[in-house]
C-alpha cells in the first residue's frame, strides 16, 4: 500500500522490477504488511467456511452440504481462523509496530524473518490445497485415532504438512521477537519503560518457541503412525489416544494465549491514548501478562475433563484454571480504571477497544463457568464451548485486531480510515457477533453438542438467530474492505500523529516510516503512556478514597 513511498529507498540501485522489493524484502514493516494482507485474505476464506457451517445449521433439516464436506468445513474454519488469520496478523502487526515502538531499525534477524514469512505462505498454500484435494475430517484438534484411522485421506496429510510449516514459521518469528526486544531497544528504554504491546510481543515470542515444538512433535508422531507403521496413539497396537490429547493441548492451550496476548497489548496501547491518561497499574499489567503466559503451560488438561483421564488429576488443572482468571480479571479492572477520570475520545479504535472489553468479559465469564469440572462435564464439547471460544477469539482477538487496524492504519499508509464507515463496521460486527455467539451458550447448556450438522427441532430458533447474526457479521466485513478502498483511493494524507499518541512509533517516525524506521535513534527519557495533567495535590487526596469506596461497593 505504501509501496510507491518507500521502495525507492529500499534498493536504490536494484536492477529488478519494483514488485521484487516485496518478494525479497527483509524489512520488518514490509514483511509485516504481507503477513497482515495475507491474514485478511484467509480471514475471508475462513469466513466462507463459517458461512457454509451456519447455512447448514440454519434449520434442523437443512441439506446444504454432506457430512464429509461439513466436517471438512468445520476443520478448515478452525484451522484457517487460528493459523492463517489471527496468527499471521499477530506476526504482521508485531513486525510492523514493535521495532518502531522500541526504537529499533529492524528485527534482530531480518533474513530469518523473511524466511518465516515465506514458510508461512508455503504452509498456507498447502492448507488451501485441501479445499481441492479433500478437506481434513478430524477438526482443528485432529484427535487420534480419528486422524489416523483413514490412511488414504490426503486432507489429513496436507493438514499435517501445512501446520508443520506454519509451526516452524512461528518458532522463527517468536525467536526474532524475543531477541529483538531484548537486544535492540533504544538507549534509555529499560524493560519497564517498554509499551505494553512490546511486553505482549515478548510474551508471545516465548509462548511460540515453547509451545510450537509440542505440536511439531505430536504431528510428526501422527504422520509416523499414519504411514510408517509406528504406534503412538492407536489403541489397536497399544497406543494411547489420551496421550494425543495431552500432547496436543500442551501446545493448544498456550496457543490460545498466543492468540489473545497481543490483543491485551493492543488494548493497553489504545485505551490510554483515547482516555488521555496513563495506563492504570503499568507494572501489574506487565507482570499479569507474564503470569498468564506462565500459567498457560500448566492448564492444558482442562480441555480433557471428560476424556476419561484419572479424575483425581483433573482437580489441579481446575484450580490452576481458576487462578489464571485472576490476573485476567485484574487486566479488565485496570483497563476500566484507565478510563476513570480520563478524557475519553470515541474514535474508531477506542470504540473497538470498548467492544473488546464487553465481549471479552463475556468470554472470560464463560471460561470461569467451564473451569468448574462438574459444570464442564455437562457443557464440554457442546455449543457452550463454541460460544465461549468465539467470544474470546472473535470478541477478544478479532475485536482487538480491528482496533489495531484502525489505530495503526495511518502509521502504515499515511491515510486515516473513514470514521463513519468504521463505526458502521463496528455496529454490525458487534450486533452480528453477539447474535451469533450468545445463543450458543444456552444451546450448549440445553443439550446441543458441537460439530454436529443437524440437531433437535427445539434448538431451531436459536440456531436460526445465530445464522442470521453470522450473515450480518460477515456482511459487516465488506464495510471494512469498502473503507480501505475509499481511503486508499482518496489519498487524503492525515496528520503524522492523528491520535496524539506518545508512543515512539508516532512521535519519532514518519507515517509511513522510512525503511530504516528512524532518521536518528531516539533516546528514551520517560515512561510510556505519559498522558494527562498532574492532578492538583488536594484533589488527588480527596478522590483517592472515593475511588476506593466505589470499587469496594462493586467488588
Amino acid at each position, binding site marked *: 500500500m505504501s509501496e510507491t513511498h518507500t521502495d525507492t529507498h529500499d534498493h536504490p540501485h536494484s536492477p529488478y522490477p519494483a514488485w521484487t522489493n516485496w518478494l525479497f524484502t527483509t524489512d520488518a514493516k514490509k514483511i509485516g504488511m504481507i503477513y497482515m494482507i495475507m491474514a485478511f485474505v484467509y480471514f475471508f476464506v475462513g469466513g466462507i467456511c463459517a458461512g457454509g457451517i451456519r447455512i447448514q445449521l440454519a434449520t434442523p433439516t437443512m441439506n446444504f452440504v454432506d*457430512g464429509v464436506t461439513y466436517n471438512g468445513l468445520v476443520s478448515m474454519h478452525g484451522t484457517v481462523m487460528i493459523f492463517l488469520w489471527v496468527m499471521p496478523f499477530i506476526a504482521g502487526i508485531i513486525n510492523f509496530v514493535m521495532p518502531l515502538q522500541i526504537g529499533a531499525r529492524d528485527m534482530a534477524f531480518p533474513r530469518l524473518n523473511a524466511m518465516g514469512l515465506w514458510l508461512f505462505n508455503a504452509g498456507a498454500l498447502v492448507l488451501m490445497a485441501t479445499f481441492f484435494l479433500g478437506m481434513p475430517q478430524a477438526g482443528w484438534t485432529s484427535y487420534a*485415532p480419528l486422524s489416523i484411522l483413514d490412511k488414504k485421506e490426503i486432507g489429513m496429510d496436507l493438514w499435517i504438512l501445512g501446520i508443520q510449516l506454519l509451526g516452524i514459521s512461528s518458532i522463527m518469528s517468536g525467536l526474532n521477537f524475543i531477541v529483538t526486544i531484548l537486544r535492540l531497544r533504544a538507549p534509555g528504554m529499560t524493560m519497564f519503560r517498554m509499551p505494553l504491546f512490546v511486553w505482549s510481543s515478548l510474551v508471545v515470542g516465548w509462548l511460540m518457541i515453547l509451545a510450537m515444538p509440542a505440536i511439531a512433535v505430536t504431528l510428526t508422531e501422527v504422520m509416523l503412525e499414519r504411514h510408517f507403521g509406528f504406534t503412538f496413539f492407536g489403541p489397536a497396537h497399544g497406543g494411547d*489416544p489420551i496421550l494425543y490429547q495431552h500432547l496436543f493441548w500442551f501446545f493448544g492451550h498456550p496457543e490460545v494465549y498466543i492468540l489473545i496476548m497481543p490483543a491485551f497489548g493492543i488494548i493497553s496501547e489504545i485505551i490510554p491514548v483515547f482516555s488521555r491518561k496513563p495506563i492504570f497499574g503499568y507494572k501489574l499489567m506487565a507482570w499479569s501478562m507474564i503470569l498468564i503466559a506462565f500459567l498457560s503451560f500448566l492448564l492444558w488438561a482442562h480441555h480433557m475433563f471428560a476424556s476419561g483421564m484419572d479424575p483425581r488429576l483433573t482437580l489441579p488443572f481446575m484450580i490452576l484454571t481458576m487462578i489464571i482468571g485472576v490476573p485476567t480479571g485484574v487486566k479488565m*479492572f485496570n483497563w476500566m480504571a484507565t478510563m476513570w477520570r480520563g478524557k475519553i475520545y470515541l474514535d474508531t479504535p477506542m470504540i473497538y477497544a470498548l467492544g473488546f472489553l464487553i465481549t471479552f468479559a463475556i468470554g472470560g465469564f464463560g471460561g*470461569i*463457568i467451564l473451569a468448574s469440572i462438574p459444570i464442564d462435564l455437562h457443557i464440554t464439547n457442546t455449543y457452550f464451548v463454541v460460544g465461549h471460544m468465539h467470544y474470546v477469539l472473535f470478541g477478544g482477538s478479532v475485536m482487538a485486531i480491528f482496533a489495531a487496524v484502525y489505530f495503526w492504519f495511518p502509521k502504515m499508509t499515511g491515510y486515516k480510515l473513514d470514521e463513519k464507515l468504521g463505526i458502521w463496521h463496528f455496529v454490525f460486527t458487534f450486533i452480528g457477533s453477539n447474535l451469533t455467539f450468545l445463543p450458543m451458550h444456552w444451546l450448549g447448556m440445553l443439550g446441543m453438542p458441537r460439530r454436529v450438522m443437524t440437531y433437535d427441532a427445539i434448538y431451531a430458533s436459536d440456531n436460526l438467530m445465530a445464522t442470521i447474526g453470522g450473515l450480518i457479521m460477515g456482511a459487516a466485513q465488506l464495510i471494512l474492505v469498502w473503507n480501505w478502498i475509499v481511503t486508499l483511493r482518496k489519498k487524503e494524507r492525515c496528520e503524522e500523529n492523528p491520535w496524539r499518541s506518545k508512543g515512539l512509533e508516532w512521535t519519532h517516525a514518519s507515517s509511513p516510516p522510512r525503511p530504516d524506521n528512524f532518521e536518528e535513534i531516539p533516546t528514551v527519557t520517560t515512561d510510556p503512556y505519559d498522558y494527562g495533567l498532574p492532578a492538583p495535590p488536594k484533589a488527588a487526596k480527596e478522590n483517592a478514597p472515593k475511588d476506593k469506596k466505589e470499587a469496594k461497593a462493586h467488588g
Partner: protein
Amino acid sequence: MKPSTLKWGLPILFLFGALPAFADAFIAQPASDYGLKIADLSYVMMALCIIFFLLVVGIIGYSLWKFRAKGPNEEGVAIHGHTGLEIIWTVVPALIMIVLGVVSTVLVIDQLNPPKKTLLVKVTGYQFGWDFEYYQSDAGATGADFETVRNICGNPAVMVKIKSLHVKSVDELTIPMGTDIRFLTTAKDVIHSFWVPEFLIKRDMVPGLVADLWVHPIRTGTFTVKCAALCGASHGLMVAKLHVVEPAQFQSWLVAQAAAPQPGAKISAVTN
C-alpha cells in the same frame, strides 16, 4: 451519530439475544439428583457472571457519560495506579474463585465415590451407533471388585465376578428410575462421548480405555443419548433413545430381553 449508535446498539442486542432464552430454560431440565446439583451450581455461576457483567458495562457506561472529552486537545488526570485498589480487585475475584473451587471439588468427589451397589451398564460406541450391556454388581462388592468389572469392559475374555449379564441392547437404553446406575464407557474405533443432557454429565468413550460415571435418575421419561465427540461423517446422527422407567417396568423389560437374547449378548460370568 457516534453516541446514538452505542446507546441503541446494546439494548437492541439484549432484546434480541434474551428473548428466546426467556422462552426456554437456560439449561437442560435435570433428570438425576446429581444433575440437579449441577444445574443449581450453573445458575449461581451464571447469576454471578451477570452481576459482574453488569458491573463491567456499568463502569464503562458511567465512564463514557462522565469522562467524555468535550473538545479537542483535552487531557485526563495523570493517575498511574493505586495499589490498594489493585489489591482489592485481585483478592475479591480470588476469594470467589476459592469458593467456586471448593464447591466444584465437593461435586467432583461426589462423582468419584459411586455407591457400591449399582446397576452397571457398559456403553460401547462405534461409528455410528451404541451398544448397551447390563450387569448387576454384587451387593457386597468392594473397590477391588470394581477393578475386575473394569477389566471385563476393556477385555471381554477376562473373568469377572458379577451376578449376571442380562442383555445387550443396541441404540436403545432403558434404565430404572430411583436406582443408582453406573455407566462404563468405552469405544471400538474412535473417540465418542456419552452424553445425556438431562443428566448434566458426559464421559468420553475412548477405545482401549474404560471410564465411568454414575447417575441416580429421579424422573421417568424418554431422553436422547448424544455423541459429544467428533467421530466422523455421521457424528451428528449418532444418537440413541434413553427410556427412564419405573423399576418394576424395568424388571419386566429385562426379563423380556433375556428371553430373546441377541447375538453376542452372552458372556459367561465366572466367579474368581
